[in-house]
Each structure stands twice: as structure tokens, then as C-alpha cells.
């Protein structure tokens, strides 16, 4: 039975089109994210960045893994790939190498990229693979109901740490920097414009670039850890974040109740895998 292609674009405010609609599969809206979730802000900032960059949409591919953030790919009117849990980075690696002219962006969550997919992250960074990885970090596994993840703070309550988390979390900024990322920034979903700027910088920077976005998860993490409403989480960010560009990545730990660093931590140049490969290939006749 053939499925009809929905062509009718819904109007959420009569007579008014959202300026970002050209990037979205509006026939898939409304999205599945909870109210108060930071993913909408992260996505908006990303799309404003694409607007600002002015790239041909057909030159952009977005790859996601599994989880709440993994659903980003499905809402974008681009070539988008919703892959398996933890594997968007190697998928994106193949895509980039097969079609080097594409701008390849991985958009996924902390659990997907740093627990099940952690090995792929460090190796893509080490190779300086020419992709941008965007991680929306909500400190837990939201999609599956709020389990502890690789960024959950010590002592935090989740469905699988009912007596408080016994594990030390990753400092993603430090991890990315030490694995070899050539651009590393962290912002929160409170910082829409700064986030947009970071996306523009990361996307136009050659090599492996990384942007972490701290995001509220009021349904799971926030509720269990008595952080209040989503707005209260944003207030928490405002009160605790310290903007310090060029700070030492190892000082970027996120500890409950303590100030934490945001800003641009790494911005450097080094040859990418593709540059090294293609230079040699040309030399030996295969360029």
C-alpha cells in the first residue's frame, strides 16, 4: 500500500512561517522531545549556524546515533542517517571518506558518543577525521527512562543509581582535547547565540571538531535530582557557568553545586586524515 507524501506544510502560527523551516521536515513535526528539554535550543542554534554559513543544503549530511539526541537527524531536511547506538562516528567517517566534499556532522548524545561509542570518538579525534561532532549532554540516558551515563556526576540519582552514582564521569572537553580534537567548545542551552557562533566555528574549522552542549533533562535527570523545572536548570547554569576561553581542558570538570567552565578550549590546526591520505595518493598516482 503506497504511503502518501505529506506535502501540506503545517502552520503553527497562522500566516507566519518559521525562518528555520527550510531546514526541517515539517511533515514530521511535532517532535518527540519533552517540554523543557534543551534539544530544541541546540537544534535551533545549529540551524541558525547553517543559515549563517550559507552552505548548499545538498552538501551537508547529518549522522545520529540512538537516543533523544539521535532523533535530530530525522527532523532535518538534509541527507540524514539515524544509525545504530554508538556508531554514528564510524558511519560518518565512511561517508566523509567516500564523499570528501560533503560537510559531515554527527549530532548525538552523551551516552551514545561516550559510553557505547566512546572508542569511536577517541579514534576519530586521534585521526583528525574531518567531521564535526555535536554532543548534547543531559547527564543521563533520557530516551530509556533516565539511567546513569558516562557523564552522570558522582552521587547523582538515576534509575540505575538509586543510591547515588558510584562512577566518576568523563570531562568531555578534556577527553576531546587529549584525544586530538582540533576545536573544542562547551556551552549550555542558555547560550543560544554563543552556541550558534561555536557551531559556525566548529563547522568551518578543518579536522575533527567538537561542541558539547549542556542541556536540561527535566523529565528524568532534573526531576530525580530535585533540580526543579527546566527553567530552574537554566538558572543553575547561569549561576554556575564561568566563561573562560582558552582554559585548560582538565579544569573543565562538571561537579554538582560547583562552578563549571564554558567557552572555547581548543582551536588549533593540524593535518587531517584526508589531507595526509590525498597528498600521498596524488604522489603515487591515485589522486
Amino acid at each position: 500500500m503506497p504511503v502518501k507524501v505529506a506535502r501540506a506544510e503545517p502552520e503553527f502560527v497562522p500566516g507566519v512561517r518559521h525562518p528555520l523551516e527550510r531546514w526541517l521536515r515539517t511533515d514530521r513535526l511535532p517532535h518527540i522531545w519533552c517540554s523543557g528539554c534543551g534539544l530544541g535550543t541546540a537544534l535551533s542554534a545549529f540551524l541558525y549556524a547553517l543559515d549563517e554559513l550559507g552552505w548548499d543544503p545538498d552538501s551537508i549530511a547529518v549522522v545520529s546515533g540512538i537516543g533523544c539526541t539521535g532523533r535530530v537527524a530525522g527532523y532535518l531536511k538534509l541527507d540524514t542517517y539515524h544509525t545504530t547506538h554508538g556508531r554514528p562516528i564510524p558511519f560518518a567517517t565512511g561517508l566523509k571518506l567516500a564523499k570528501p566534499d560533503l560537510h559531515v556532522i554527527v549530532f548525538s548524545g552523551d551516552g551514545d558518543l561516550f559510553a557505547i561509542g566512546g572508542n569511536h570518538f577517541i579514534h576519530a579525534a586521534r585521526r583528525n577525521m574531518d567531521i564535526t561532532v555535536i554532543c548534547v549532554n543531559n547527564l543521563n540516558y533520557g530516551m530509556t527512562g533516565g539511567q546513569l551515563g558516562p557523564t552522570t556526576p558522582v552521587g547523582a540519582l538515576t534509575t540505575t543509581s538509586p543510591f547515588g552514582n558510584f562512577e566518576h564521569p568523563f570531562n568531555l572537553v578534556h577527553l576531546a582535547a587529549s584525544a586530538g580534537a582540533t576545536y573544542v567548545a562547551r556551552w549550555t542551552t542558555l547560550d543560544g547565540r554563543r552556541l550558534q557562533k561555536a557551531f559556525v566555528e566548529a563547522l568551518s574549522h578543518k579536522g575533527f571538531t567538537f561542541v558539547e552542549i549542556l542541556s536540561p533533562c527535566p523529565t528524568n535527570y532534573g526531576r530525580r535530582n530535585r533540580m526543579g523545572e527546566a527553567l530552574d536548570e537554566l538558572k543553575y547554569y547561569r549561576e554556575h557557568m564561568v566563561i573562560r576561553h582558552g582554559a585548560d581542558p582538565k579544569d573543565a570538570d562538571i561537579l554538582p553545586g560547583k562552578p563549571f567552565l564554558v567557552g572555547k578550549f581548543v582551536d588549533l590546526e593540524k593535518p587531517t586524515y584526508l589531507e595526509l591520505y590525498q597528498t600521498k595518493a596524488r604522489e603515487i598516482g591515485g589522486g
Partner: protein
Amino acid sequence: MSARTVLSGVHFMNGDEAIAEGAIAAGCRFFAAYPITPQSEIAERLARRLPQIGGMFIQMEDEIAAIAAVLGASWGGMKAMTATSGPGFSLMMENLGLAVMTETPCVIVNVQRGAPSTGLPTLVAQGDMMQARWGSHGHYEIIALCPASSQEAFDLTVRAFALSERFRVPVLLMTDEVVGHMYERVEIPPEVPVASRRGPKVPPEEFLPFAPDPDLVPPMACAGEGYRVHVTGLTHDERGYPDMSPEAHDRLVRRLVDKIRLFPQEYTFYEEVGLADAEIAVVSYGISARVSLGGIELARKAGIKAGLFRLITAWPFPDEALFQLARRVKGIVVVELNLGQMSREVERAVRGRVPVHGVFHAGGRIHTPEEVFQGIEEVYRQCR
């Protein structure tokens, strides 16, 4: 080494090298893998060859990443392959499912070695045959081919790429350590046909990325072609959008199975040797089929008319050919380097018409002709 793309001419190559050359000749320009014995010769040859002919090689951090990169490259428009052995094959199973679900053409080579676990890394076995069929999760159909010589390793690699493009399905090349490492004559023809990918026939605004053609296979729009396709491992409708209804799921899974199952004539390959007058058929594949010929010779000398039915296609299993074989012979011997995997399929396909006797060994060495001969004698006694 020459930078010619297709190395037309006569060569002395092992099966692994022949697979690498077969891939290049078939138009494969992307290879990602993780080192593992006895597969490494494939990766080593392609690491040298691909950069010289405009292709991409990358050694990934594990086999999970290797197959994921292959899928990404396939959506980037390249013909892509990975190669591994048992432990790595296990790691690939999750993304094999993604390849099936997203209908991503690719070729996966498994040079089988002794297992379970690390088993016998340098020694032969054929113990992953059922994993090839059922190793990933869910119900699906897949194509698996079994070369028995270096020449066939080359030929079937070319064929594997053609089938993967034709059906938009991962094709498994289930070879083994002996075929992989045995050096033999390989003749590469002057020209090798390169299968083309079926692209969209309508403009992007009319294109439904998972709406099948009459043969149940949808045309494929790769990244950057202007079609802006959403590809997901979730159950999806013809637009590629997630659809969580049981009806959509049943419709999709049935199509993924039927698009292959309904066209057996396109992928069912087998070879018959000396079966015209045979009373006993030896069914085997890969290196075990080569050894079986020695056992059949001993049987003929002893006055037992035996012949070989060599499976070239392991999956989908050639049920009909085996059923017909059972009408022509009095008994069947299955020779394989595991404790009974394809023999179960043979038993199922012959539906009790003739006795089926297994000559099994868990691996580490190939069978001797005498062992095969004893199996033939045994079933010959049973059916007299």
C-alpha cells in the same frame, strides 16, 4: 606493485589476495577493516592498492567501526567492503542488521578460522555458517557465497558486488583459512563488468526513498545527490520516516525477505561433479568440497558410485536443488568443518527422502580423503 586498476592476466595468488583484486575489479573503492588472522592479507593488499587507484582505505579501531564505515561509504556512493574472521564477524552483527534494514549494498568477507572465541586463529574451520544466516537480530534474508579456490575467490567477489547492488543487501563471502592462504593460479579477464547502482528515476520532490520497484528493491539516492533522504534503522515507511505500527513493520520485513526469496535463479549457484551416475552424493563447500573430491575418488575405486554437489551459494539455501538431488541418489554425505550446520539444511531440504550422514570435524585441519571415503561407505551401507 602496478597501479593498473584491473590486473588482467594470469597470477599466482592466495584467496585473500584474489578477494582484494576481485573487489577492485568489481569497482570497490572503499575498504575499512580491523586486522585479524587469517584476513590480514586482504587488508594489506588493499592498503597498498586503493590509494594508487583513487580509492579509500582505512584501518578502523574495531570491526564494529569497520562495518559502520562501510555503510557510511556505501551511502556516500562508493562500492564498499570489509573483511574479517570469526571474532570480528560477531562484532559486525549489529550493523549487519542496520545494513539489511536500510538496504545498504556492501560486501563482507569472513575468512573462517577455528572457533568459538579466539579458538584457532591461524587454522581452518567453517563454523560461522549459521551465524552468517542468523547472526544479526530479527528476521531477514541474506546472500552468502562460498569460494573453493583462489580463482573462485576472485570471481565470487565480483559477483558479490553485483548481487549486493542488485538486491540492495549485504552479501557475505564465507571463505575459510585454507582457501584464504592457499596460492593458486588466478586468471583475471581483460574486462570485468562493474555493476551499477540503481538510482532514482524521478526528481527529488516526487521521490519516495523506500518505495520499491516491481522487483521489490527501491532505487537508492546517495548523500549529496539532492534527494535529502532520511535513512533509519527504525521501522520506516516508504518516505523513510519511522512508523511504529505492526502493519508497517510486517510490510517492511516481508518486503526485505521477499525481495531476495522470490528471485532464487539470480543467486543460486552450485557445481555438480560426477553426479550423472552417482548413488551417493557428497554435499560440501569451500575447502571441504576440494577434499571431498579425493574421498569420492577413493569411493569410485572401491566400486561406490559417488559424486559431488558443491554449494557455491550457502544462503539462501538452494532447497529445490537439494530436493531434486535427493530424487537422483540413494544417500547423501555432508562434509564440513563444524559439527553439523549446513547438514541441517540438507536434511531439511531433502525431507527425509534419503539418509543424510555427516562427516564433521570442528576445525584446525581439513578432512582427509579417507575420512570422506568412510562417510560415503557408511551411508552406502545404510541405503543398500
